[in-house]
């Protein structure tokens, strides 16, 4: 079994920290403060001194927010959907319940580099696992998960087929169920599991060589078999990419 982050390249962001420019890096599913050798010790020392360490604050915010599906509601739906926010120009109503955490999420999404993409990949991977193993909040957040999948499928299909008004009906299926995408009189009917997000979309494989990828398998994290459809949606075929 391969890890969910296999095939997703590292990403870095520069953080002004302690008078220097530090690097925070996402790699192999983890966020690392590269310039801090003993994060826990430094956090404790900084707390005693009444100071904050921006790199470590970023790590802490990440760990708090990465598991929240709200990330998927707010994050970009792909290259045609860039965020355009200046976090310091936004205002937050701290009196509103649930919104106290929103600023944290938006700070992560405004972090720059490819970090916001890695954040939503992490969120999607967490909920893919929870859908498989069960989770107390699953029924509550299911509409958000379905919408997250729907929005990204919608954008992908509209751009790929060149039909900006294409109607898409989506059924979110289980990971082992039959995946299918078919034309209908009104548009396109899609049956895909939520795991399509971390497995395909988050890896940038949704459209590869002009074909729509509905599943991507690997046994070693280097060689990938893509199950793809052409624009006619009738010719399911697979091909292999070796990333070594």
């Amino acid at each position, binding site marked *: 079994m391969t890890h969910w982050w296999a095939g997703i390249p590292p990403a870095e962001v520069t953080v002004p920290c302690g008078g220097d420019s530090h690097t925070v890096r996402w790699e192999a599913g983890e966020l690392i403060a590269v310039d801090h050798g003993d994060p826990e010790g430094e956090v404790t020392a900084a707390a005693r001194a009444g100071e904050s360490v921006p790199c470590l604050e970023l790590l802490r915010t990440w760990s708090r927010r990465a598991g929240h599906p709200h990330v998927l509601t707010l994050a970009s739906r792909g290259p045609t959907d860039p965020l355009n926010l*200046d976090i310091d*120009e936004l205002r937050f*109503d701290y009196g509103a319940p649930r919104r106290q955490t929103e600023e944290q999420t938006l700070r992560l999404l405004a972090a720059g580099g490819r970090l916001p993409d890695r954040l939503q990949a992490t969120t999607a991977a967490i909920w893919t696992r929870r859908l498989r193993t069960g989770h107390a909040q699953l029924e509550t957040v299911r509409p958000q998960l379905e919408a997250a999948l729907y929005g990204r499928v919608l954008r992908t299909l509209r751009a790929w087929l060149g039909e900006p008004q294409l109607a898409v009906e989506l059924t979110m299926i289980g990971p082992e169920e039959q995946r299918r995408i078919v034309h209908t009189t009104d548009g396109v009917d899609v049956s895909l599991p939520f795991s399509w997000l971390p497995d395909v979309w988050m890896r940038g494989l949704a459209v590869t060589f002009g074909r729509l990828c509905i599943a991507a398998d690997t046994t070693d994290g280097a060689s990938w078999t893509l199950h793809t459809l052409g624009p006619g949606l009738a010719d399911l075929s697979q091909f292999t990419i070796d990333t070594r």
Partner: protein
Amino acid sequence: MVAFDAGVYLRRLGERLLDDSDQQQPGHWSALRGAAAALVVAGAIAADEAWWVIDDYATATRIRSGKPGFVHFGPPLRRHEADSLMPRQFRVIDQEIPVGGGQVLVRDLAITADGGTLRYRRCLDAPGPGQVSRLSRRPGGFPWNHTPPDIIDSDGHRPEVRFGDGGRDGEGYVDGELALRGTIAPEATWLEIDGTRVDLHGRMGRWEVGIEALEDRSSVERFLWRHLAVARPRSGITTALEPLIQALVAAGALEEGSLLLGDLRAVAARMPRRPLHQRRITRASTPGLVEPWGSLLGRLGSDDGPEWTLVLGAVAPTCDGVQFAANSITSDLDGFEVEFDVAPNLGGVSALDELPVAWWARDDLENHYLGIPTGGGVRGDSAQGTMRYWPALDPRAKRLDLLMCVESHQAVVSVSLPENSENNR
């Protein structure tokens, strides 16, 4: 068959709107709002849960816009209990006076036991590109600058005059008010404002007030007809019903092809699409339209309204927690206006689980009219303003009922209209 999930439905709609920047609306005017309210009235989702969806997508929209400001909005508040409206004696003035090198239209005077409110309007020069038209930012925008005028009534009373809290900016004008403290004679026939005399018109209309139960309808049916009757404030643009209908059909609360849908769509297709001030004078064909819509649209474009003003000062009983007062009616060729007070303030959008208040009117000839708030201001718990009704008042009508439709009841102010021979101000 997959069970309908209103949360999923709304969020998918949110995703489509996010992909269509033309459809995105700020804050409380979110394009999700109508569908959300429809699903709430159908019992498919709780109001607070539906609001989270609207708010989530308001935030998602904001962080794609590059605009500063709040990234989300609290839900619209439910109507709250307000103090009862106090009857006010009303006098129409409608006279321009010179103030500070310009002209100010002095509109009317409302007299209370301990003073009154004098409302005025100042027309602005058309602002150039990039010019800010707001009164507070225009040098010399206040007609009386920093000192309120000296006012005396025909009985010699000289109330203390202060700038009032009410008023608003409109398209090319600003409304303001002066608060008068002290005695004003109820029978006063004129005021002098810094030495310029204005006459107080006082032709009183005869009126009665009451409450009627609304026709017994299902909550979904009432919801849809009500939203068709409630246009955007000021502009008068009709609510688009299809997103509401589609949500209700998807939820199984409404059947595609039903008689109700046929009636609704037939009326919606004939409703004016343009803002109130841009409507062309055209008569629509209305055979087969259900009432009151048939009679409303049958006279669309009429320009034979009588011209008069009636002073009322009628306070209707509280109806489903809302009270309104009709202070005066002014009829003109293509419609009529009612100066009104309402408590609580109904400005802004209604909560998802409340019906918006509709302002109908009917006459004794079975014609119907629809009102649109075109301006006004807030005064404590209440609001005051001008309601513009369309189409033109039928000149043959002898009675006009002003109807404030709330949840299951409507308050009525029934006014006896002047005879034809009286149709002069």
